[in-house]
């Protein structure tokens, strides 16, 4: 008999996601409406989240609590941090191509 390992569900419902993030579902909905969090909306209008979005939620909370940013500013900061990550990764790739 073959044992199959448990895999994490590839997408989470709003309630499940909110529970894992430790937030009220309405706050999660607000995050989506403010464009802080990516979610898919299915035919019935329900929201579905990728598990990786939990990282984003944590980051939103840290930025709000630690720097007193409002949600508009957090949206900007998230975009900029993501862009910096991409640029750093790109420069790392080209950097490793040159002689070390």
């Amino acid at each position, binding site marked *: 008999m073959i044992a199959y390992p448990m895999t994490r569900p590839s997408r989470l419902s709003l309630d499940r996601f909110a529970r894992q993030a*430790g*937030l009220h579902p309405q706050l999660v909905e607000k995050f989506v409406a403010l464009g802080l969090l990516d979610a898919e909306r299915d035919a019935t209008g329900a929201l579905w989240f990728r598990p990786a979005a*939990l*990282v984003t939620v*944590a*980051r939103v*909370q*840290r*930025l*709000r*609590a*630690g*720097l*007193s940013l409002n949600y508009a500013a957090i949206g900007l*900061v998230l975009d900029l*941090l993501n862009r910096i990550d991409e640029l750093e990764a790109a420069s*790392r*790739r080209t*950097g*490793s*191509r040159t*002689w*070390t």
Partner: protein
Amino acid sequence: MARDYYEVLGISRDASADEIQQAYRKLARRHHPDVNKNPEAEETFKEVNEAYQVLKDPETRRRYDRFGRNFRQIPEGYEETVGAGRGSGGRGFGRAGARGSGGPYRSEWQFQDSGIDLEELLGGMFGTRGPGGPIPGADQEAELTLTVEDAYRGGRRTITLAGPSGPRNYEVNIPPGVTDGQRIRLAGQGGRARGDAATGDLYLVVRIAPHPRYRMRGRDIYIDLALTPWEAALGASIPVQTPGGTGTVRVPTGSSTGRRLRLRGQGMPNSSGPPGDLHAEVKVMVPPRLSERERELFEELANVSTFDPRRPRQ
């Protein structure tokens, strides 16, 4: 831990309230764990918040100036009491106690009074405001610089990073053949969480230090192979040093400068695929000064040879 709050914020003791806020805002932005992935940044961020919480309020600042870091243990009315020489001490611990409802005040208080209450200490990390729920910790990144030889061999290595209570040591298992830019994940060793949320991960980003002889391109290693003119012309077997030991390069006859000789599989090992190659690039060297006899022989060669490297080849 016991740095002066003014020093933490980098301001003088007579700084104005505006200067305090300015210094705090700048430092908080720079050291926030989501902006700065350096493990040390989290500690600094916490320190900066703690300092600001005390210095932003003129009353606590005044008490800090007078009593130092332990000012919270000194009853509020202390000065007046002493001044009046009477033991009224009306308010006692009242104010400090009332403030201990959460946030950094409480953590500091408990830390000094009854040993470290970790939960509270972590709770005070994001000091300024915000709801009291748990917040997962941020991921951190630190660089791990390895020599080419260390990266080739892999193995255990102890690294030291700044941590919440002094330096932390980690035993890291480095896979043989790790390449520049690869990340080693230490699960749960990153930024601390608030409440019972998950701790962040710590990523060690591998950097291969420049080497005087080896140049790295991915898993391939390039070296210069210095040859005498006669070795290059006649061919030779040359022993070369590789990170894994000694290898032998067979130089074919008539190898000019720039020719690349490949030692297949002598580059960086690879746990999930073929290892890299070692490329030896021929570099013909001539003696800087010739002996009498060498000069004779070269002159003879010059007279006899019809070789002209500048003539276009067919």
